[in-house]
């Protein structure tokens, strides 16, 4: 089936796993009529009704805690965190319990919970509704961190998550959802009708190149691909790596590419400091320092909240032009 954007393919994965596994329930705010606002649960209410799809009150702390308890008692909750920005309202239950109970209990209580959340800006929703924040989850031991960029990956990664006995957080970028009320920067592609898994910890080469490697995830993969086309016109051949999962992280693929091109730019829509860019750069230099022709470069949100006004927002979220400029600069430095 042809699917445009990640929202429908995520909903499709949940639907098929719910048919296979009656331990899966869907909870969160507005997961019925509104499909969790960004479409990740669309169609599930029509198919399964309020017996398995539950609109909660606005109580993130409590429904995250209930997910912990329900998973302990044998269910596999799919929990919608409508915008990742709302994590604060329920984070204690997530990071001190959901992410740790398996470890703290000496392996007695697996925690099969799948959290699906919407990330990203670029449409004027300001500081409390535009963040990415996957770096926070990746920093805390116990979460698997999944960032799909295509409909095919989204379905396979979510299916994998729904078969995983661990807390997996799926970060769906709003501009990749394919919903009519938002700009769309993703892809439409053929997605198999039957269920399939995409493995965690396997990055994918979206484009092969020799001069330069750009590493990113989610929306930034698509912007990097467009920058790579512009670079091609300047005669710079760019390799694009889509990490797909930050935890586990595919070190092998990124190190291999860094060794091949000797120039690495890491592009991220999360905040710069103490984030994904720093982590990936560290892993590369630890294994490929001698192969690097120039220091690793990075582009991310420059440690300021996402401002509202359009010219301000455009200044802080990496766009195609800035990715292109950074990459060119990096190439010309050596």
């Amino acid at each position, binding site marked *: 089936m042809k699917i445009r954007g990640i929202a429908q393919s995520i909903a499709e994965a949940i639907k098929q796993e719910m048919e296979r596994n009656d331990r899966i329930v869907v909870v969160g*705010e*507005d997961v*019925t*009529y*509104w499909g969790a*606002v960004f479409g990740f649960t669309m169609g599930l209410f029509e198919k399964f009704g309020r017996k398995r799809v539950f*609109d*909660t*009150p*606005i*109580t993130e*702390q*409590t429904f995250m805690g209930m997910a912990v308890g329900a998973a302990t008692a044998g269910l596999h909750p799919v929990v919608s965190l409508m915008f990742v*920005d*709302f994590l*604060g*309202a329920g984070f204690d239950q997530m990071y001190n319990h959901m992410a740790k109970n398996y470890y703290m209990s000496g392996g007695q209580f697996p925690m099969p919970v799948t959290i699906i959340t919407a990330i990203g800006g*670029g*449409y*004027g*929703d*300001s*500081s*409390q*509704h535009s963040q990415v924040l996957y770096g926070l989850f990746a920093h805390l031991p116990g979460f698997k961190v999944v960032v799909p960029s295509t409909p095919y990956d989204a379905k396979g990664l979510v299916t994998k998550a729904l078969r995983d006995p661990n807390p997996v957080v799926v970060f769906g970028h709003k501009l990749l959802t394919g919903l*009519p*009320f*938002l*700009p769309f920067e993703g892809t439409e592609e053929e997605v198999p009708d039957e269920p399939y898994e995409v493995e965690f910890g396997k990055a994918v080469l979206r484009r092969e190149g020799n001069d330069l490697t750009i590493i990113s995830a989610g929306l930034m993969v698509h912007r990097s691909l467009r920058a790579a086309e512009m670079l091609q016109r300047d005669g710079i051949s760019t390799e694009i790596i889509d990490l797909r999962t930050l935890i586990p992280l595919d070190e092998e693929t990124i190190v291999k590419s860094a060794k091949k091109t000797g120039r690495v730019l890491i592009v991220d829509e999360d905040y710069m400091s103490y984030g994904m860019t720093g982590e990936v750069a560290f892993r590369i230099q630890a294994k490929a320092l001698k192969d690097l022709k120039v220091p690793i470069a990075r582009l991310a949100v*420059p*440690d*300021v*909240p996402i*401002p*509202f*006004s*359009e*010219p*301000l*927002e*455009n*200044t*802080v979220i990496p766009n195609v032009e800035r990715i292109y400029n950074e990459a060119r600069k990096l190439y010309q430095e050596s």
Partner: protein
Amino acid sequence: MIIKPEPSLKDLSYLIESSGLKPSDLLTMYRRMLTIRYFEETIRKIYHEGKNPFSMASGIIRGEMHLSIGQEAVAVGTLYQVRDEDVVVSTHRPHHHAIAKGVDLNRLAAEILGKVTGLCRGKGGHMHLFDKVKSFACSGIVGASFPQAAGAAFAFKYSGKDNVAIAFAGEGAANHGTFAETLNIASAWELPLILVIEDNKYADSTPKSLVMSTTFHYQRGLAYNVPSYLVDGMDVIDVYSTATKAIERARKGFGPTLIEALTYRYVGHFEGDGEEYRTKEEVEMWSSLDPIRRLENRILRLNYADNEILAKLREEARKQVQDAIDFALRSPYPDPNEALRGVFA
């Protein structure tokens, strides 16, 4: 009409008098509610310009837009007699509260349009309006208003001031833990806090009947020893008379009050909402209770003003709104580098 019978003319003038209102006050309230209504209608119109097909990212106003059309009486009735130093903490649906608190309309409009002349120099936008002059703040995070207002109330009490703090929130927000936690601490510490719940029946698409264990939140307030009142949120006089008593009580140091106002939003949760979760009949029923028309009818029946005077007030309000919008449209955008400044004081 919602929870109390519509009073006879005689009873109405008695109610107005006994809550300390003069005829001129009713005209001022009418005028303020009109400003809110016209402002919201105009913002709505501009918001949809350049959004065909509908996309949140395009047009003059970007992002989400939560309007308060239908809920004007709650804001105006509650805030009619507060002082500039009294703190108001609002929500993702903040325009009516801001206008009722006296926030400058030009700078409010400019902020919503992302202009440098806006309240927050364009950094905040519609859900993040801050005005130091009028002690006004809000948040797009649901449930955030309760503890922040309680904190302001704590500061007033600590400093020996007779100011009050007012938290607005929806009936959805009041299911959040912060509501219960704030009721407890405000009651235990006798903080000068007023919690105003605007019950418009829905949190996004979720009807309160599916997610609330009680019918009303005031029932919960009572459990925390907080005097709690249910008022007709489509009746500015009813809101006002309860709010005045609550504010008076708080100023005198007797502690918090909860006011739950039954109201309705005539438009979707946000612009672009398909409203598949509610019926047309329900919207029509509530439209017949329009708080502005209701006040207008009362003013006429009581002979506080004639049609000509009311028409003049409508004209004034329209002009004030138009001037504010023109100011916002005329104003420049901030310098892009402003984005990188101002994280720390």
